[in-house]
């Protein structure tokens, strides 16, 4: 079999064509949004939301109800609940978030573990199966991705300002809390869009990893968004071929490809600084390091 056969053979099937389109759509939206997630330091929140949607997804699965609707409702509810926790319960911060998302995940697990031979369903919910993407998933993902990109375009300036300098943004009178809620909501929507293809546990990787790689390669936010989107959709395509040819869970292959790109970006980054200098800075005491 030649290389061309390897690339073209999967394209004769509807399901692989659908998978490639799904990953293109997801890659562009998650890649662009991810730059802001990384900039604002929300990796943990993104991961938390991936866990939080699980009870909604399990409910949709058990009731045969539309995934996007139930998942979307759970995700938005938990995103805004999480924003509330972060602002109101300053005493607890990260642990509070971890406890809440673990509780939500445990609830989903308890619901599904009551059913017979639940493992297959669970693995698909957690790690995704891009070849199971149907027309309904594709439509909802496309709509969500379009909405996310439009929202980013419409709110570009204020939201980037908040990500870079929340204190300054508040000082000039921007509604920082509202913009944070919008950002959390967009992350929740992106998580739901990626559920079928990448899975609840791995979907945040599409937000974090390509964006972190882009940050090493491009300077401006728009430049980072373009690079990040390109890397995310490329990783998605690699994942589709890997799950078609090697029969591995698509989410895992997609994320590993993205991590490989990150490794290359790290090695190739023009702006690396030596370990020693960073260590000297750390020894001088960074404020973020001091415990509360």
């Amino acid at each position, binding site marked *: 079999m030649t290389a061309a056969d390897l690339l073209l053979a999967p394209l004769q099937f509807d399901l692989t064509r659908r998978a490639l389109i799904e990953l293109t759509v997801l890659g562009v939206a998650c890649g662009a949004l991810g730059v802001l997630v990384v900039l604002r330091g929300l990796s943990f929140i993104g991961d938390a939301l991936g866990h939080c949607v699980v009870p909604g997804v399990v409910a949709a699965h058990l009731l045969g109800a539309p995934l996007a609707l139930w998942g979307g409702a759970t995700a938005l509810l938990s995103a805004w609940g999480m924003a509330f926790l972060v602002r109101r319960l300053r005493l607890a911060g990260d642990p509070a978030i*971890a*406890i809440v998302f673990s*509780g939500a*995940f445990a609830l989903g697990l*308890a619901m599904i*573990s009551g059913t017979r031979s639940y493992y297959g369903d669970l693995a698909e919910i957690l790690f995704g199966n891009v070849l199971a993407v149907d027309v309904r998933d594709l439509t909802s993902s496309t709509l969500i991705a379009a909405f996310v990109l439009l929202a980013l375009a419409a709110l570009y300036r204020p939201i980037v300002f908040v990500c870079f300098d929340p204190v300054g943004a508040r000082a000039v009178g921007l509604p920082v809390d509202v913009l944070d809620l919008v950002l959390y909501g967009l992350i929740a929507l992106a998580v739901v869009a990626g559920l079928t293809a990448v899975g609840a546990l791995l979907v945040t990787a599409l937000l*974090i990893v390509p964006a972190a790689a882009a940050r090493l390669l491009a300077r401006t936010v728009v430049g980072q968004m373009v690079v990040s989107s390109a890397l995310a959709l490329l990783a998605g395509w690699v994942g589709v071929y890997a799950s078609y040819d090697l029969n591995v869970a698509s989410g*895992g292959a997609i994320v590993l490809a993205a991590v490989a790109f*990150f490794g290359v970006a790290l090695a190739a980054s023009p702006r690396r600084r030596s*370990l020693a200098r960073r260590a000297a800075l750390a020894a001088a005491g960074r404020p973020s390091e001091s415990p509360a």
Partner: protein
Amino acid sequence: MTPVEALRAALVDPLAYAFMRNGLLEVVLLGVACGLVGVFVVHQRLTFFGHALSHTVFPALVVATALRVDLTLAALVGTAATIGLVLALRAQRDVGDDSAVGIVFIGLLALGVVLIGLLRIRSQLVADVLVGDVLGVSAADLTASAGLVVLVGSLVLALYRPLVLVAFDRGSARAIGLPVFALDLLLLGLVAATATVGVRVVGVVLTVAVLVAPAATALLWVRRVPSAMALATAIAAGAGVLGLYLTYHVPIAPGSVLVLLLTVAFVASALLGPRGILRRRRAG
């Protein structure tokens, strides 16, 4: 059935089974480790790092099963690799601390997922790693867990003062010449050992809850470190024992019940505790 008989059927009869006895011992061991280490995890803001360390156990266990090597050993090697990778990434410019943890842990999780497919691992094993298998704990597993918990306990006791000083006043710890970086590494090692026991009980995904929930709940009620450790141990072990008894009677995943109980305890304490939201509002 008289109430006494009913109580005996609910509480004593399950003890006739070896899997229940082993499970109960295992959750109590986990409770001790979580109580001792959790307080440091909460204070040192290692929640996300702890989450990452428990996810690393996943590929380690997949590899260990494929190569037929000891699971606990593989888990410890895997977590050591994670600590190294995260610290190396954090030293890079333009990679945020939070992204460094995120990338490493999600990459290792994905590696585990891909290896399952490539190595054709039995799905039952994967399920056990993901959601825990406390009722499948063997005598050998129990010995391994006991060894880890004794190690964690004796290190915390031996190095109690320096560990607490680093957690609460980093500047002074450095000023009096404590090896802060070595103590940080040691703490990460303790978290990794605890996470290895936690994964056996509640699975990879939920281990972060047993790492932080008992301690975070205890710290809502008491302030002193030894009291917080004792209370956190009691909460974790209590939730474990109660959860196991519940799942003996209702067939759902024991790990999920344990974590739900811990979540309820935390939320109730956050609302009703001495510094609770409800009380504070009433007072203010």
